[in-house]
């Protein structure tokens, strides 16, 4: 018997491997080290090395590992987005981790493992790889959600997320099984080629896959877990998963939609448009009357998933690059908004109520101004990053003769302005409560630096959207 080894080229996977090695190192060093403060810096170094590797690996579009993964501009773009999100999330978690020193290594390692899953999702060209990446990303997030062990809500959130997530994974797998039964392929190109004339079985498979993706990126009506999980999880984790899981979920969703469903756009485009309308409206209406800022941002993140889905539903090149641009812009503004919450929340409470925002501008003028910028950007006020994100995806809808969808989106943006501006109004125009306890906003340079980075990018992307859009357009070249 002769054994023929498959030609395995791991080189394009190097960024992920760098992150994995960093995570393992963090885990092992954590058990020996007395001073755990620099584990975060080690992880950050690993993230930066992975970023440099991604940037310098110009291998050209190629499929590798038995065509399971693709190294195309699209995957590289998602890699960069995920790495930026990971780096900022590490900085956001720095202060919180120092008060949870005994769990520091696990937190950092799980965050990196989750990032590996996210990056793999962007590169996956096969439904099985997508599933494995999805599980790597989700399992780490389930544990991270329950990390604030001193609060019951954190454990509750983790259990809810785990149970519902496992359920969604089952839907996804059943969809994969049905699609395989109908088309005989696991790879997206093969599925796409054999889609024609497969009838009900393939349609049911695609529908089940849509449920799985919708759960991950929190599209209505599969969003029920979002508010509870976002509120219960430690805020630094909420920040990470609200942007990271969304970026990764949409990355795989987009590739699946544009490669496997390219021929059946007429069937699925309207379905996605309907989902987008439902998601935007539901998210925005529910966000109007929230008393917790984290919960409000959770509903807002549902609404933003709806806006991003408009780009997917449009189904054209502009929609594709618009969605990528949106994911990048959303990452910065949402990480920033959660960063401000981390700065303002009382120690150990893990949450921030709307009334606690009253008059914060007087004591913390810089912080209030920063929060206002993020809120304006989320609301889509020009010239900030959020405006151009919406501009491109709605523009794509108009181009695809779905002007009604763009109009629904714009109406929704107007609704959302109410609750985003409410934050600024509370901060600037209301007298502070007498019994507002002073929060420790001073002396947190790491957190302040993370906020500064997010702020610079939100304004920078808004002032020079052309550069970023050009990057997104180059990245929109999918390799099947």
């Amino acid at each position: 018997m002769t054994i023929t080894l498959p030609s395995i080229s791991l080189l394009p996977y190097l960024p992920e491997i760098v992150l994995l090695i960093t995570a393992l190192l963090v885990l092992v060093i954590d058990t020996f080290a007395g001073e755990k403060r620099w584990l975060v810096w080690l992880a950050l170094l690993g993230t930066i090395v992975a970023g440099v590797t991604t940037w310098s690996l110009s291998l050209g579009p190629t499929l590798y590992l038995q065509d399971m993964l693709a190294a195309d501009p699209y995957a590289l773009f998602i890699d960069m987005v995920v790495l930026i999100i990971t780096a900022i999330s590490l900085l956001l978690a720095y202060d919180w981790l120092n008060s949870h020193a005994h769990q520091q290594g696990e937190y950092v390692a799980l965050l990196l493992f989750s990032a590996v899953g996210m990056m793999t999702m962007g590169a996956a060209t096969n439904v099985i790889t997508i599933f494995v990446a999805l599980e790597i990303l989700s399992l780490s997030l389930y544990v991270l959600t329950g990390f604030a062990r001193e609060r019951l809500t954190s454990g509750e959130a983790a259990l809810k997320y785990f149970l519902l997530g496992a359920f969604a994974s089952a839907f996804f797998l059943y969809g994969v099984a049905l699609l395989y039964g109908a088309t005989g392929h696991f790879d997206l190109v093969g599925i796409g080629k054999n889609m024609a004339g497969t009838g009900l079985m393939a349609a049911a498979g695609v529908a089940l896959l849509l449920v799985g993706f919708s759960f991950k990126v929190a599209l209505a009506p599969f969003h029920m877990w979002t508010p509870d999980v976002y509120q219960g999880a430690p805020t630094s984790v909420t920040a990470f998963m609200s942007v990271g899981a969304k970026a990764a979920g949409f990355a795989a969703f987009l590739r699946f939609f544009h490669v496997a469903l390219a021929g059946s756009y007429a069937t699925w485009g309207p379905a996605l448009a309907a989902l987008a309308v439902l998601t935007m409206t539901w998210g925005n209406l529910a966000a109007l009357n929230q008393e917790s800022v984290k919960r409000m941002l959770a509903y807002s993140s549902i609404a933003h998933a709806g806006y991003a889905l408009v780009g997917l539903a449009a189904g054209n090149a502009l929609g594709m690059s618009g969605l990528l641009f949106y994911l990048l812009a959303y990452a910065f503004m949402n990480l920033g908004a959660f960063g401000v919450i981390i700065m303002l929340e009382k120690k150990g409470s893990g949450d921030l109520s709307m009334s606690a925002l009253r008059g914060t501008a007087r004591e913390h003028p810089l912080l209030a101004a920063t929060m206002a910028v993020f809120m304006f950007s989320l609301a889509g006020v020009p010239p900030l990053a959020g405006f151009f994100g919406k501009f491109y995806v709605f523009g794509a809808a108009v181009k695809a003769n779905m002007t009604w969808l763009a109009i629904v989106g714009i109406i929704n943006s107007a609704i959302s302005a109410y609750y985003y501006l409410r934050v600024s109004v509370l901060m600037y125009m209301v007298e502070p409560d007498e019994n507002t306890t002073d929060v420790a906003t001073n002396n947190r340079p790491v957190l302040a630096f993370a906020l500064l980075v997010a702020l610079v990018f939100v304004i920078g992307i808004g002032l020079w959207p052309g550069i970023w859009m050009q990057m997104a357009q180059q990245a929109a070249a999918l390799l099947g």
Partner: protein
Amino acid sequence: MLKQFGFLGVHAIIALSVPLLGIVAAWLLRPKKPYPLKKTTYECGMETIGDTWVQFKAQYYLFALIFVLFDVEAVFLFPWAVAYNKLTLFGLVEGILFVLILFAGLIYAWKRNALEWQ
């Protein structure tokens, strides 16, 4: 394609009907002499005192987890070891990397006192 799945359906029906047939036949043939003692939980032995839904301390779960991990490692290593002579340097390095990653896990479990009986 659908025909092949049809065979699966026929198979499922037959597979289900065999045990069902047995149960129904036994139900039809057996003598029926019901009396209250037959309905108790134990026909012999003591009645339970208090609630039976109590928590058991399952502290061996950690050992079970670690056992499963290293058991699966062995499953992967056996074919690797059998084919060792035929593998190139690449295969050797891959195997070593695999063991190293698991070794990191073992160190982690050990230093976190997962191997101590608490």
